[in-house]
C-alpha cells in the first residue's frame, strides 16, 4: 500500500495511512454458518419436487396481495407443506416465483421460528416453556418428553426428531415461547392444534399415541392431521370437500376457561348495561 493516495473524490486528506491494522482479518466464511447450513448456494437445485399444483398455489398466494413480495411468508409455509422443511430448493422456488434473490428469501426464512431447516417429523410437538406454563409444569413436561423420546440414554433435544423424519409416527420436539393459552397452561401444540392443561403423564401418553399412528383429538382445534397439512393450511389452502372443511372449522374451541367469565355472568344474572342504539353523531360538513 502506498503511503499517500487519492481518497474520496480524488482529494487528498492529509498524508499517510488513515488506518492501522490491528489484528489479522477474520475468516468470515470460515466462521459463518452459511456454508454448514447450506443457506445460500450457487448450485441450481432440482425444483421438480414442486409440481404444477404447487406452482399454481404459489401463484394463487401472490394474487392475494397488491404487491407480490407479501406472498413470501405464506409461500414459505407452502414449501414446508411439500418438503416438511424449507430446503435450499424451497428457497430457490420462492425466489423464482417472486423474482427475488435466493439470499433475500434466505434472510427471511432464517428469521422466523416456524420455518424449519431440518425435515420435521409427521408431527411437530411444541411445548410451551415460557414462565407461566413452566411454573405450572411445562418445564417438567418438556424434560420428560425429551427423555421419553430419546434413544440410547440420550434425550431428544430442541428441534430434534424421533424416528425417520417425515415417516409415520415420527415426532419433532421443540420448546416454544408463549402460545397465548395461559389460562389453559401448561399447553402443548401438535401441528399447531392445542392440547390444553397437560401433565407430564398426559403428554407422554399423547406422544405415545402419535408414535403408534393415533390421532388424539385436540382440546381446541381441528381433528389432527400432520405437520405438512397444517403448513398447507397456514399457506391458506383448506380441505376442498365441504364436509372435511366444516369438520376442521367446527373443531372445538369452547374451553371451560375461555367461557368462564361469560358463564359466571350468566349464572349470576350479570349483564352489560343495555344498548340504547342512538343515531350516529352529527358532524359538520367540511
Amino acid at each position, binding site marked *: 500500500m502506498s503511503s499517500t493516495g487519492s481518497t474520496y473524490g480524488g482529494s487528498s486528506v492529509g498524508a499517510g495511512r488513515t488506518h492501522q491494522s490491528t489484528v489479522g482479518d477474520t475468516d468470515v466464511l470460515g466462521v459463518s454458518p452459511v456454508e454448514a447450513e447450506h443457506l445460500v448456494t450457487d448450485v441450481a437445485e432440482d425444483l421438480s419436487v414442486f409440481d404444477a399444483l404447487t406452482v399454481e398455489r404459489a401463484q394463487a398466494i401472490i394474487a392475494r396481495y397488491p404487491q407480490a413480495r407479501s406472498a413470501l411468508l405464506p409461500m414459505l409455509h407452502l414449501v414446508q407443506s411439500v418438503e416438511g422443511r424449507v430446503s435450499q430448493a424451497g428457497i430457490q422456488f420462492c425466489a423464482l416465483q417472486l423474482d427475488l434473490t435466493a439470499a433475500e428469501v434466505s434472510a427471511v426464512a432464517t428469521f422466523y*421460528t416456524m420455518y424449519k431447516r431440518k425435515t420435521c417429523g409427521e408431527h411437530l410437538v411444541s411445548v410451551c416453556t415460557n414462565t407461566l406454563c413452566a411454573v405450572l409444569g411445562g418445564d417438567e413436561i418438556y424434560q420428560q418428553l425429551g427423555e421419553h423420546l430419546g434413544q440410547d440414554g440420550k434425550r431428544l433435544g430442541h428441534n430434534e426428531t424421533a424416528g425417520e423424519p417425515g415417516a409415520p409416527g415420527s415426532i419433532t420436539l421443540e420448546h416454544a415461547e408463549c402460545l397465548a393459552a395461559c*389460562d389453559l397452561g401448561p399447553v402443548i401444540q401438535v401441528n399447531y392444534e392445542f392440547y390444553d392443561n397437560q401433565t407430564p403423564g398426559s403428554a407422554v401418553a399423547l406422544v405415545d399415541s402419535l408414535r403408534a399412528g393415533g390421532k388424539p383429538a385436540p382440546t381446541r382445534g381441528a381433528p389432527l392431521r400432520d405437520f405438512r397439512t397444517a403448513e398447507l393450511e397456514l399457506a391458506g389452502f383448506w380441505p376442498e370437500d365441504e364436509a372435511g372443511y366444516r369438520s376442521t372449522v367446527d373443531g372445538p374451541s*369452547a374451553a*371451560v376457561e375461555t367461557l368462564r367469565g361469560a358463564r359466571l355472568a350468566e349464572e349470576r344474572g350479570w349483564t352489560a348495561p343495555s344498548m340504547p342504539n342512538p343515531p*350516529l353523531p352529527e358532524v359538520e360538513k367540511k
Partner: protein
Amino acid sequence: MTTPNTTPVNKPAPVTPVLTKRWLSPTSWSIKTYEQLEGYTALRKALAGTPEQLVELVKASGLRGRGGAGFPAGIKWSFMPPNEDKPHYLVINADEGEPGTCKDIPLMMADPHSLIEGCVIASYAMRSHHCFIYVRGEALHCIRRLNAAVREAHAAGYLGANILDSGFDLEITVHAGAGAYICGEETALLDSLEGRRGQPRLKPPFPAAAGLYAAPTTVNNVETIASVPFIVNGGSDWFRTMGTEKSPGPKIYSISGHVTNPGQFEAPLGTTLRELLELAGGMKDGVPLKFWTPGGSSTPMFTAEHLDVPLDFEGAAAAGSMLGTTAVMVFNETVSVPWAVMKWTQFYEHESCGKCTPCREGTYWLTGILERMVEGKGTESDIDTLLDICDNILGRSFCALGDGAVSPITSGIKYFRDEFLALCEQNRPALAGAHS
C-alpha cells in the same frame, strides 16, 4: 396509589359481557349464530352514515387501543389522510404473543365475525378497500375460523364489491405469520407483511403517513376493532357507562396461573386484582399471592401491595406499571422471582430481532448473568450490573421490545432484591480473618 375513580351512579356488574356475550352460544363462530344475535346490524347502521361520523363516534367513545399501548383509537383513525391519492390500508394486529396474553385468540375462535364486522366498519371509516388480518402463525385454529368467516361474509354480501348496496368495496386477506414476537410491534408487522424480516421501522413517518407499501395505514388490535360494532350500536355514552373517564369500556381480563379458576373475564376497565381474584375463585389451594403482572411480562410486576390498584391505563401507570394487555399472570409464594425473571429474559433474548445493539446485546448479557445467578454462581455486584444494562436498554432501544425486556428485571429487583441477594450469599468474599 391513586385516588379511586369516581363511581358512576349505576355501577355496572362485576362482569360485563359485551365482546364475550355470544361466546356461550352453540357454534358461536358461524354467521348464522352471529346474525341471530344482532350480527352485522352495526354494519348497516355504519354504512348509512359517513366515515367522518364514525371517526367522531369512536373518538367520543374514548375507545383506547387494546393491544397494550392504549392509544385512543378514534384519534389514530383521524390521522388517516382524507384524500385517496394512494390506497389506504387497515391492518389488524392479531399477532398475540406477549407472555401471559391470551385474549385475542379466544376471541377470534369464538366470535370471528365480530372482528370481520369491525374491520368492514373501520375500513369504511378510513376509506380503506383492502384489510389485512395478520394472525400469529401458531394460532392455526383462529386462522381457520377467520377464513371461514371471510368466506361466509363474502357469500352474504358483507364483503366484496358494493357491500349491502352502499357502493363501498372491501376485501379482507387473512395472513399467517411465522413465529416472531417482534411482529406484534406495528412497524415490524408491516415489514413482515411485505415479505421481509420482521424488524421495526423508524418513526416518523408513522404508518398513517407511510405504512404498508408506504401508503396510509392504520394498525389496530383485534379487541379494539371487535369493540367497534358494539360502539356503533350502543353509542359512545353507552360505552362510557363501563370503565373510567379516561379508560372507558369493558375489557377482557385474562387471569392465569395460581388461581382456582383461571380464564377470560370481561369486566369494566378499572377492575382491581382483588375483584378479579374473587371472580377467579381466589388463590389456588389458598397459597398466598407473591407477585403478578397487570398486562403481560413487559409490564412491571406488582405484589400483594397492589391488590386494589384500579386496572385501567391511568391506575396501572400511577402505581408504577402499565396496563398492557390485561394479561394478569398470578404467581404464588412457591415461585422464585429471580427464576421467573430469568425465564422471561430468555424469552426476550430469543425474540430480540437483532436490529439495534442495546436490545440485541443487552438481552444476551442479561440472560447470561441471570442464568449464572440462578445457578447460585452470582455475586452482589451482578445486581448492579443487571440494573446498569437495563439502564442502557430502556429508552435507548429502537422499539418497545427492549423496554419490555427490562421491566421484569427492574421491577423484580425493586420488590424482591433480597431474593437476588440470597442467591449470591455463598459467593460473598470471606471477611479477612473470618476462617482463621
